[in-house]
């Protein structure tokens, strides 16, 4: 810990809520902090919540001390209200009761060329002799073996094995693997005893100041005979409770995975740290620095690879889940669309992501009619796809014979009551009987196009409420008489809103043009023709929305002499 007899530099990290933190050297001493410069502050902080005379940091007999100079509501060190206190590395100082700004005290030993961390350690280590190479070789072999294993073994057992080796090599009592949490604070992930037993991680209490020092120096740190006088109260308590006398911390750094040209010494990526401690003094004094370096780099590479493997597995798992979702969605579409005696049918669904928010369905109703429907859930992707599945379940229940208006009303209420679902749907639901009467209910779905004797018209004009957006929405059923060979094109707005590279929309008119020549085409040719028009228009621009098409052609069963009927439909 801070050894005041050797040259020590300290700094304050000023952490703001709204901008990057800033490091300020604590010099000269005593060092004054407060609002503005009037009171001789060395660190002026421009924040109305900070008093003009706030704190002083001075050199005391045991290191740096902090003193409250009259901050409103007092000062807090590591969360405790404090008048005056000696500071330890990493102490968090809050001024007043607001979270406006926080100071972190940092100790930093001066490193001159003749007194590097390395030589300081060498003086601690003493002689190891010829056996160090043997130990080193043994360590490398063991660690390389675990590295080979880790592709097959669960991550935890690989890391445990690594820790066990580290304990054996260093003769420690316990070993811990720490990893940074989301806030970047190192947390104990795994702890092992010297007999290879797992220890409860929540009961581990590694010395934060030793950890802090290793991270600051970016190298292994050996701490013999933890000096209680130098520790802050909290850490000292943990040290005394556990009777720990010595500790080794090896910080683990990963290599950068992204290689950019002209990389200017990218900051090293901290993966975690190995922390080893012992109740005996001088346990680690004979350790060779080479051993620790080897331990650090091997452990880092194991951890790094293990994390990569884990991420890759997670990615594969998500991809697999999505592909299952896609398979299920495609399987829920009517399979092998069969013509009914009174109608020919074809349809397709092409999501713009793995899964889509559109779907179509065709199913027979108990009364002999056939249900044809298309639905489009707002939004795209998995969220929308989940809702289409729900809609399909609800609507398919109508094969047992339920009034479609009641079902739409029910679905609307169901979704409005669950507004946090955050989705609604547009739908068209039609019931086509052998007599050519099409009864339909619409919910804001673009009107299907009716191709009759080479002329295209919209099945209806005017608006209707979607399902699941407006609680008071009402729906009504309409009817139209179809003539034999009348062809209905149901489509989702992904067709008319297909975009070219300049973001122009395909639009209603192009769709009408694409449909018009197909009075005598087979339905498969008709569908292919429309898709081709859309693709030619998009000219390679990526599909921006799900595309669903359902084509239905009415034919009067068993009767060639069909009576011409007049249908009411809006001209285009």
């Amino acid at each position, binding site marked *: 810990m801070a050894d005041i007899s050797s040259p020590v530099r300290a700094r304050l990290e000023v952490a703001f809520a709204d901008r990057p933190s800033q490091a300020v050297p604590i010099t000269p001493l005593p060092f004054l902090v407060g609002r503005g410069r009037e009171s001789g502050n060395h660190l002026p902080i421009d924040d109305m919540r900070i008093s003009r005379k706030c704190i002083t940091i001075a050199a005391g007999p045991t290191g740096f001390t902090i003193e409250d100079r009259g901050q409103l509501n007092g000062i807090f060190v590591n969360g405790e209200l404090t008048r005056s206190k000696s500071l330890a590395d990493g102490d968090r100082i809050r001024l007043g009761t607001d979270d406006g700004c926080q100071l972190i005290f940092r100790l930093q030993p001066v490193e001159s060329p003749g007194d590097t961390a390395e030589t300081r350690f060498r003086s601690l280590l003493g002689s190891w002799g010829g056996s160090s190479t043997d130990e080193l070789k043994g360590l490398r072999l063991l660690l390389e073996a675990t590295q080979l294993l880790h592709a097959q073994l669960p991550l935890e057992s690989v890391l445990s094995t690594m820790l066990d080796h580290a304990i054996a090599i260093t003769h420690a009592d316990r070993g811990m693997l720490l990893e940074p949490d989301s806030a970047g604070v190192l947390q104990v992930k795994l702890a092992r005893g010297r007999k290879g037993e797992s220890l409860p991680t929540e009961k581990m209490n590694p010395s934060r100041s030793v950890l802090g020092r290793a991270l600051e120096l970016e190298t292994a740190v050996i701490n013999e005979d933890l000096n209680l006088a130098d520790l802050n109260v909290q850490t000292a308590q943990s040290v005394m409770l556990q009777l720990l006398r010595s500790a080794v911390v090896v910080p683990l750094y990963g290599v950068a995975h992204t290689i950019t040209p002209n990389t200017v010494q990218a900051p090293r990526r901290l993966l975690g740290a190995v922390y080893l401690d012992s109740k005996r003094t001088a346990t680690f004094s004979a350790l060779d620095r080479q051993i620790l370096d080897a331990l650090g780099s091997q452990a880092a590479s194991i951890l790094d690879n293990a994390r990569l493997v884990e991420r890759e597995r997670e990615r594969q798992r998500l991809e697999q889940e999505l592909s299952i979702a896609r398979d299920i969605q495609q399987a829920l579409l009517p399979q092998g669309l069969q013509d009914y005696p009174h109608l020919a049918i074809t349809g397709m669904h092409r999501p713009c992501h793995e899964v889509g928010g559109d779907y179509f369905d065709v199913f027979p109703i108990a009364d002999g009619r056939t249900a044809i429907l298309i639905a489009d859930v707002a939004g795209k992707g998995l969220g929308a796809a989940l809702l289409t599945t729900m809609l399909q379940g609800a609507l398919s229940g109508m094969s047992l014979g339920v009034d479609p208006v009641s079902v739409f009303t029910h679905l609307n209420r169901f979704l409005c009551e669950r507004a946090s679902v955050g989705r609604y749907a547009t739908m068209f639901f039609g019931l086509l009987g052998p007599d050519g009467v099409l009864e339909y209910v619409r919910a804001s779905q673009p009107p299907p196009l009716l191709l009759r004797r080479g002329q295209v018209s919209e099945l209806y004009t005017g*608006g209707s409420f979607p399902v699941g957006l407006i609680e008071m929405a009402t729906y009504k059923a309409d009817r139209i008489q179809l003539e034999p060979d009348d062809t209905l094109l149901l489509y989702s707005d992904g067709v008319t809103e297909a975009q070219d590279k300049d973001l122009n929309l395909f639009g209603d008119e192009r769709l009408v043009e694409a449909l018009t020549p197909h009075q005598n085409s087979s339905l498969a040719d008709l569908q292919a023709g429309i898709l081709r028009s859309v693709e030619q228009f998009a000219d390679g621009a990526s599909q921006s929305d799900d595309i669903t098409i359902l084509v239905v052609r009415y034919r009067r069963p068993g009767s060639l002499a069909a009576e011409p009927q007049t249908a009411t439909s809006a001209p285009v």
Partner: protein
Amino acid sequence: MTISTEPMDGEVTRVILDGRLDIQGSAAIDLKMNVLAGSSKFLLLDLTNVSFLGSMGLRSIVLPAQTVKRRGGKMALFNPSPMVEEVLKASNIDEIIPIYHDLDAAVAALR
């Protein structure tokens, strides 16, 4: 997509939307719209510069309108382009949120 507000006489807040109200556009304005709906009496939603209205965008307009209505206020839509107006009418939205092309008429209807 940008959203800005402008206070007008008689507790009317004019909300000016600018850009494409697609999935990204609606995500960008949802929070602000909810805050406005929870704090304003009369909202005049200026759609002059909205070039596209998608299904999620429709939701971003309707839900705040319902919130305002529940709180005893009103919302009106001002000056949508023909394409945007078509989308609004296809969903019967004009039945629950009136559409105006004349600013004075819109403000008068709100107050």
